[in-house]
């Protein structure tokens, strides 16, 4: 019975439970069925495709092993002030873009030897973009002329008579320099840099082939262009050669052929095209042949006239399984003698034609980067990666002539390079006997001073410390306790002051140039009166080696740092100690006064920093660098391992034994005293925000840092390394915040006027709306299955218009979060969109050579403005009454388009802005609309008067520019730099305030919040970055 009851009760229970829950369920189902679509607010994470397949993992964040980072001890900030009236570029993270400004070893750009073998010309990069072109007289071994090109040198050639050398300059001009010297002439005709130049065999004509796709034939007598042709499809010009009196050929780097032209003295006519072998990599060429290699390392010679492959005598051999000793090849133009240098140091020269005969020599260069020959192949110029340049004469093979000695271990500098007091120069030692004063701006050597080799100088004596004084004076302290004072006038006999017997370890010149404060290795401090060149006072207040000396800017105080952990503050007037500052736990190695002379910063070997009040002698702030930044490793120093090839290594002993190898080596304070920068012996710089007492940025420099200096009104930080390289690090905004969620390249990224809302779109066919403050996704809207390639956002962020690869425009209502539909009107692809300031009108520029204006509310066109070329850029003036358009030449971006201003209400033209050499990618109106700043694909930036159409000023940047915008209430001009960088300039002067690289392989779009302080970039990787110029 119980059993029956059990089953019965189970059944009843089931029914009852089912009925009860059934009723409940009905309600719930209804709720689910009628619920609104789920908002994706804050769902910025990537969900696994099938959650159930990997329940054990789900969404795992990136996890790192616990870091051993110890935050610096940060105490009360020492600097506090009201926010400046105008925004700065972030708090002072000097980790933006960096550019070399002084090269320790100049990189070769061009090398040639005159047909008669008398002259060698070498163009070498001495700074980021500047090049020094030196012409050497082979007979004397001395330069006959030096030419500096701030934007570099791109090509070089001698005329057949060896009386002129021609080169292409970075400013796109053609420069002709008479030999051995004389006034150079500069010919302008190209819009982009010249890729190659060649003289006709009689020297009457000169052909220049430019990246602007044009071949120009110049008459040498009249300097006039007498022939011109367009090499269709050229991206970058590689070679041009006269093959005969009236025929020449060209090769560009993006095609596998040579193109032949006929020139009859009046017209340059395309004749035919000759295909080169597949995968043929050209190394060099003479007038009739090209020399190169195949991917399998097989060398080939190709007849330029027929494309026929000829056998090459060069056989490369594999050095290891993975690398081959790549040969550097040179050829003599007339004899066709061929030379190849392999990294085993052998130079082999084959006699042209059959290559049956060859000669091989061993050179003392293992790493050659260029070879050039005279007409007949008798003299060969060889340039090494270590900076060495020699001429090798086949008739005298045992006595190669060095024109420039290589930088080697034996000539490595012993004294650390230091910046001069005015920030314009740096002093360094080229070798044991030569002091160089280099210009920071150009990288050029301004002075080359030789140390006196007097009889009383002991051979073992070496310069231990350098100091660049005012008025071109250089103080050299040496290991014998003497100071040699060199004047810029090489004729003046150096003054020698004997201070003592201990090595000179620190020097400082007073601002009034009256005193030289000297510290030695024994801990003694010496005051030298420079007016009489004698020591006026010596005393030993510190027990350890004096490692640094410094005067305050007001000249009232001085300071010496010592290895005994102390810093002494001196009263300059009495030359007596005012305070002995104690607090460091290791030897103090660097000191620096603030610009107002009220504070002193000291850094020690441990990596500790102390900021002292000069008046009271009390410390006001202490911080310690992370061990990794300040201390060498137990294994060989990272800086040794990561030296660039060709540079000497510290471990090889060229640096002095007593060189600082740990801790802080240099200190600099920004002009506004908000940022403190320190350099370390381990190759780092670290900056601190003194206003907030926080770390800012750390940068690794490969080599020990020897000196630091703020420049460009604190927009950049100059860093000198132990071996004499100087790089400039631009100020950068704080690290960007990341908006993650796109699954494809982001091609549209925009902010509303305040910068609080971001709208992005890309190849994943999604339009995403973001809350920037929260860093969260508000909504993702489908773009009807089409990729978004460009777009525009209204100032209030409530409307957007986008386009894809086609001609249709998609209108979006971002209040209702919906698409208003797609509208067609253009016949071809739309490239650019812009909202009017009031958000009511949209302009679209298309490949169909028209611009249309649309009423957003009706999505209908008002005007169609016809152009004579495809329109790739449109923008409204701030009052909406004018529309700016930029067209692209149908042939290529390398030709100039038209930058025009139109009346919005009538669609009639107002102005055309003429002055850009090639396509204008972007432009922006000033806030009042009275000025316009435009930027070109060639890096040209122009400011225009909108009322008159006149160019107010222009400047050049080494890279192409696009995506211009004004930020921070119109104070700053933001531009995208090709190669994924961002420029921020002062809009009134175009002075660079900041340059930084976006963390991406490719920026898809860049925009700003015009009245905010944010910059947005969409990237190829699907990431959206937002930088803020305010310290958020």
């Amino acid at each position, binding site marked *: 019975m119980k*059993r*029956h009851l*059990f*089953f019965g009760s*189970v059944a009843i229970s*089931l029914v009852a*439970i*089912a009925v009860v*829950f*059934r009723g*409940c*369920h*009905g309600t719930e*189902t209804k709720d*689910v*069925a009628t*619920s609104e679509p*789920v908002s994706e607010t804050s769902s910025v994470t*990537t*969900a*696994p*495709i*099938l959650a159930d397949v*990997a329940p*054990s*993992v789900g969404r*795992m*964040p*990136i996890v*790192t*092993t616990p*870091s051993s980072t110890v935050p610096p001890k940060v105490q009360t900030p020492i600097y506090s002030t009201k926010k400046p009236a105008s925004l700065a570029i972030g708090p002072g993270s000097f980790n*933006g873009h960096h550019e070399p400004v002084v090269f320790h070893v100049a990189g070769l750009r061009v090398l040639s030897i005159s047909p008669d073998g008398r002259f060698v010309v070498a163009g070498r990069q001495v700074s980021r973009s500047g090049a020094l072109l030196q012409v050497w007289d082979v007979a004397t071994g001395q330069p006959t002329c030096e030419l500096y090109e701030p934007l570099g040198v791109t090509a070089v050639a001698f005329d057949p008579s060896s009386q002129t050398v021609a080169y292409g300059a970075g400013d796109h001009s053609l420069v002709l320099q008479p030999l051995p010297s004389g006034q150079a002439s500069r010919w302008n005709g190209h819009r982009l840099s010249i890729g190659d130049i060649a003289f006709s065999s009689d020297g009457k004509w000169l052909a220049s082939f430019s990246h602007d796709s044009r071949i120009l034939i110049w008459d040498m007598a009249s300097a006039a262009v007498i022939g011109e042709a367009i090499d269709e499809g050229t991206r970058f010009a590689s070679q041009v050669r006269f093959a005969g009196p009236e025929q020449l050929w060209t090769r560009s780097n993006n095609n596998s052929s040579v193109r032949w032209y006929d020139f009859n003295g009046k017209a340059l006519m395309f004749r035919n095209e000759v295909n080169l072998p597949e995968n043929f990599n050209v190394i060099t060429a003479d007038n009739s042949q090209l020399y190169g290699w195949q991917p399998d390392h097989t060398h080939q010679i190709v007849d330029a006239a027929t494309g026929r492959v000829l056998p090459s005598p060069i056989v490369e051999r594999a050095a290891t*399984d993975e690398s081959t000793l790549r040969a550097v090849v040179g050829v003599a133009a007339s004899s066709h003698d061929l030379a190849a240098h392999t990294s085993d140091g052998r130079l082999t020269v084959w006699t042209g034609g059959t290559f049956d005969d060859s000669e091989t020599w061993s050179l003392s260069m293992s790493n050659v980067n260029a070879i050039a020959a005279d007409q007949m192949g008798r003299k060969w110029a060889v340039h090494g990666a270590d900076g060495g340049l020699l001429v090798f004469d086949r008739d005298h093979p045992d006595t190669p002539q060095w024109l420039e000695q290589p930088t080697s271990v034996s000539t490595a500098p012993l004294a650390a390079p230091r910046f001069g007091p005015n920030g314009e120069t740096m002093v360094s030692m080229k070798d044991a006997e030569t002091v160089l004063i280099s210009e920071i701006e150009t990288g050029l050597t301004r002075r080359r001073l030789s140390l006196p080799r007097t009889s009383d100088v002991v051979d073992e004596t070496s310069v231990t410390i350098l100091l660049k004084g005012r008025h071109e004076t250089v103080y050299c302290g040496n290991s014998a306790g003497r100071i040699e004072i060199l004047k810029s006038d090489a004729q003046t006999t150096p003054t020698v002051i004997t201070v003592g017997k201990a090595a000179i370890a620190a020097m400082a010149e007073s601002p009034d140039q009256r005193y030289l404060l000297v510290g030695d290795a024994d801990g003694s401090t010496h005051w030298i009166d420079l007016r009489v060149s004698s020591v006026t006072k010596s005393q030993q207040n510190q027990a350890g080696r004096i490692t640094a000396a410094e005067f305050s800017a007001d000249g009232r105080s001085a300071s010496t740092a010592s290895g005994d952990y102390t810093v002494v503050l001196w009263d300059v007037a009495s030359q007596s100690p005012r305070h002995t500052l104690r607090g460091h736990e290791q030897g103090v190695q660097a000191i620096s006064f603030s610009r107002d002379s009220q504070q002193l910063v000291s850094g020690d070997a441990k990596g500790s920093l102390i900021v002292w009040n000069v008046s009271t002698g009390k410390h006001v702030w202490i911080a310690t660098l*992370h061990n990794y930044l300040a201390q060498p*490793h137990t*294994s*060989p120093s*990272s800086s040794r*391992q*990561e030296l660039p090839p060709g540079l000497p290594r510290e471990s090889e002993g060229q640096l002095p034994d007593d060189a600082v190898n740990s801790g802080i080596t240099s200190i600099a304070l920004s002009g506004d005293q908000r940022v403190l920068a320190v350099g370390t012996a381990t190759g780092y710089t670290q900056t601190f925000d003194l206003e907030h007492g926080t770390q800012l940025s*750390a940068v*690794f420099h*490969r080599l020990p840092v020897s000196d630091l200096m703020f420049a460009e009104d604190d927009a950049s930080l100059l860093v000198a390394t132990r071996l004499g390289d100087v790089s400039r690090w631009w100020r950068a905004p704080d690290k960007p915040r*990341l908006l993650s969620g*796109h*699954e*494809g*390249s982001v091609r549209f990224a925009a902010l509303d006027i305040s910068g609080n809302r971001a709208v992005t779109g890309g*190849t*994943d066919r999604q339009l995403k709306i973001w809350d920037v403050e929260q860093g969260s996704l508000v909504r993702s809207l489908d773009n009807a299955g089409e*990729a978004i390639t460009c777009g525009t956002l209204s100032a209030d962020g409530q409307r957007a218009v986008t386009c894809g690869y086609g001609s249709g425009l998609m209108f979006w209502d971002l209040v209702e979060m919906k698409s208003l539909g797609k509208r067609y009107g253009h016949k071809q692809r739309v490239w650019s969109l812009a909202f009017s300031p009031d958000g009511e009108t949209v302009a679209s520029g298309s490949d169909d050579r028209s611009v249309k204006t649309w009423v957003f509310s009706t999505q209908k066109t008002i005007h169609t403005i016809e152009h004579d070329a495809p329109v790739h850029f449109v923008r409204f003036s701030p009052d909406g009454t004018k529309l700016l358009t930029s067209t692209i030449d149908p042939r290529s971006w390398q030709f100039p388009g038209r930058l025009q201003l139109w009346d919005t209400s009538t669609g009639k033209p107002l102005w055309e802005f003429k002055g850009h050499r090639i396509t204008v990618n972007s432009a922006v109106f000033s806030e009042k609309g009275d000025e316009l700043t435009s930027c070109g694909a060639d890096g040209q930036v122009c400011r225009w008067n909108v009322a008159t159409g006149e160019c107010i000023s222009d400047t050049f940047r080494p890279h192409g520019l696009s995506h211009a915008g004004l930020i921070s209430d119109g104070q700053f001009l933001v531009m995208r730099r090709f*190669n*994924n960088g961002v420029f921020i300039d002062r809009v009134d002067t175009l002075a660079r305030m900041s340059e930084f690289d976006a*963390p*991406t*392989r490719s920026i898809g779009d860049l925009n700003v919040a015009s009245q905010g302080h944010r910059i947005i970039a969409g990237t*190829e*990787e*699907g990431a959206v970055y937002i930088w803020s110029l305010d310290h958020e």
Partner: protein
Amino acid sequence: MRDSHRSELPDEWSDLLNAMAEETLTDEQERRLADLLRSDSEFRLEYVRLCQLQTLLAMQSYAAAEPSQQGKPPPNRRIPVITRRTFRLTAAVMSIVAVVIVIGFLSWGPGSGTNSSLGEITGIVGQVEILRDDQPPTLIRADDLTQTPLPLQPGDTIRTDRKSSATFILSDRTEIGMHPETTLILTVEPPGHLTMPRGHATARVTPQKPGHALIFVTPRAEVRVLGTELELLALADHTEVAVKEGRVRVTRISDRHSVDVSAAEFLLIAQTGDLTIKEWPRPPDDWSENFEQGLPRGWTGRFVHDVLPAESHGAAQAVPMLNPQGRNMDVASPSRDTGLFSWQADSVLHATLKVQPPAWLHIYVYARTYGQSQEVMTYCCVNPDLWQSSRGEWRTVHIPLSEFQRVNVGQVEQTLGRIPTRVVFSGPIDHVGVTVDRVWVDRHGSPVTGN
């Protein structure tokens, strides 16, 4: 309903139920019985019927016996004797049945009480749309599954959108995973058919009885499965089938041409053309490189052998590389079209690396598909944590491959397969870039003795 089409019970079911009634269940049969009760709604129905019959017979027996308790039972009736063991078993089974019934009533809408469940949705990411009969579409989210799975009925249509995915288990324990933008219809007639008008699905099909194959129907093909693991892509113009385990028979609908596709094989079925089977590689789940013996053949980078983590003897430092967008500093594995490792849902990439500030770092995984040997898909991990906190220290990062986002969506036509062929660590030019001491991939993020 399926019952209406079944002429007789499967032999196994009859054997089990009879054995239960006769109390002759072996341990193996007992386990199987429990399994079936959990997984097969039809079996549960049969079981309830038997229980009801048993109850009825027992009650009849009890009632008949009462008047003559002292007498013998009727000799010609075999009355099941409910022993304690049977009682316990039956009670347990009934409890399961009760739960199932309650859940069934709890979980689904009108009329469901009259339909038997074909399976149940067990996992949802995002929100999934379900169409049933003439009811309006219902949106189901993961939260709706937190307490109970969602039973499915014949005729249900399940749709995932661009951001959602779903997993369901059929009554025979076949697992179906629906990727985004997929539609699946649990076809009523004929039974055993799953119609997939569009989308991408993975299936781990429980071995089917001969003659009762599970059949996927796409616009271009029928895929008959007797028990295997496969992946399906249904597009408007073609269907793709990739088999991971076992074998399937694919029939092109347009001409009824059939081919068998076996494990590690791939087939594209278009309207016309040859049905050409391609093999695809199956690399191991794990992959590792520690640079202890130098830079291995095919790697891009510069071998460094000092300033290393403890007990390490070598690392690869980035070198300048030219890519379509420009130059970067890269450490890159060789490109291997046979695959470096298998991309599983729980795969994790680990790396011990150093980034010298201020460089950034992206990690790319390039992948090929089943049908194409060249790498066509690019995945990238963009995470500032990879580089922004670094001060040059060696650190080990552990990144689930699910964190890697596809960066060339829309540029490559949708196709099946994701076999990693190359891993690249990429940073900006003109910086020291990244140095990689070790990189490895495994599943579940299992701990590895690292540096």
